[in-house]
């Protein structure tokens, strides 16, 4: 983390695109995105209600729901524009929905065309087409319309079921 932060500062202050190209630590750009995989855990509160919190994935078996979380943070000094996070859904998982509190992603069933799930179609074995279901989703993508200012951060997350 220390190394990453310094390299980010250097790049940010010098603002040299060349430095980015030559630096092998490409991930050390001004935007830091960390991926986490969590499971939902229901916690009973004293007032009798249950709240859902995220816990580390100790136990995941087929049929279980997991939550993939992407945390982004602008560690540079410049605002970042046109931020796009494209998360291919791991093959062994079936996409379900955006996680609680996360913006709805655009989804894709082929990794090329993105949109709302309801607008996507999948070719069938018979040669026709059918509306895409969450099981068909191969990629989820979030696009930020507004720039991420220096130091700003946020989170996207989606739920998927282990096949």
């Amino acid at each position, binding site marked *: 983390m220390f190394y990453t932060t310094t390299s980010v500062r250097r790049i940010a202050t010098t603002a040299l695109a060349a430095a980015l190209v030559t630096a092998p630590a490409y991930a050390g750009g001004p935007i830091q995105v960390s*991926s986490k*995989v969590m499971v939902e855990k229901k916690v009973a509160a004293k007032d009798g209600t249950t709240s859902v919190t995220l816990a580390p994935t100790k*136990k995941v*078996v*087929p049929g279980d729901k997991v939550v993939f979380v992407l945390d982004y943070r602008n560690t540079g000094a410049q605002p*970042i524009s*046109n931020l796009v996070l494209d998360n291919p859904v791991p093959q062994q998982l*079936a996409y379900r929905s955006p996680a609680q509190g996360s913006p709805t992603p655009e989804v894709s069933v082929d990794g090329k065309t993105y949109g709302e799930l309801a607008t996507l179609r999948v070719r069938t074995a018979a*040669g026709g087409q059918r509306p895409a279901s969450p099981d068909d989703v191969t990629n989820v993508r979030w696009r930020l319309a507004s720039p991420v200012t220096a130091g700003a951060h946020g989170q996207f997350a989606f739920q998927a079921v*282990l096949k």
Partner: protein
Amino acid sequence: MTTDPTTTTIFNREYKAMFANKIRLLLLSGTAVLATTGTAHAAETVAGTVISNTAQVTYTVNGTPQSTNSTTSTFVVDRKVNFTVVVDQAANTKVNLGQVGAVTSFKLTNTTNGAQDFLLDSAQAVPIGILPGVPDFTMSNLKVFVDSNGNGVYDPGTDTATFIDELAPDASIEVFIVGDVPTTGSPNLALVALHAVAASGGATGTKGTALIPTDLNLGNADNTVDIVFADNDSDGLLYLGDIARNGQGIAYSGYEIGVRNVALTVTKTARVISDDVNLLVNPKALPGATVEYCLTVNNATLLTSASNVVLTDVVPANTTFVPGTLTIGLPGVLGVTCTLAALGTTTGYTGAYDTTSKTVTATIPTVLGGTSVAASFRVTIN
């Protein structure tokens, strides 16, 4: 549990990842075949699979496009232990007293997301009411064998494995309980239970140890393959032979004494063969005449043999047994000849005459179901 539509998409997506889009149609049609052949949950992700997730990130800084990747998060798919064990025969096995090696059949299906062993044992303490009838005898020499050659039938000497080795996900195998029926008494029903325990796999030919579910409160459970029991209560809530999520299964079957007795009848006829006056032509029962007695044993129960049939007949008063005339064999033509056998006995049959008790004894080892055997002997009238 994954359903068919899900399977379609799993294959669909895997193929899409591997091949170009233009051959997708062809592969989709192949997938449809796979889905209908019952491989539906073969697609459950195998335990131990490491699943990684990385997002691709693009952005611009001062109008310059940049790209990077997120960190990669991973988790390991844990072992969801699940299987079924069911009786694989329509009714109790019909047995006879003294039957050796009587078989009941069971089927075990591994629905775990990974190959594993199963330990097997049998029991005769079966919960009351789980099967019709009240058991009144126990089998002896009870053993459990696996259908090693996979033909669905117990083959003595071939199916000798006593545990299930490396059963693949979604694969099934037959298991047999083999035992001996008591030789005496008048019992009706014995019940048996097949008990299976999920055991660790991984080594072909090696009997694994029973699996123990991982205590998820322990630390460092994230990147190891945890064991999670997901098996059902195989004998229902009413019975405590098995409970849900214990990594064990149980199924029950029975042995029923089918045929205990046969409809055995004996018919006795007498025919004068000759007398001293008329000789062989229309002989009368005069003193000195020879009389043939004919005993016919009939087993009217089809398909069931009567064993060790012993006929005894006391020679009537005022008659004398003619030595060497005892004949045992298949019945002859009615009214003409008692047996088809020549004087003497057909192989296997034995006969004797006791001069003291004046008793004729004929021993017939087997009277097959639906057949008759005849015995004849001659006396002279004093």
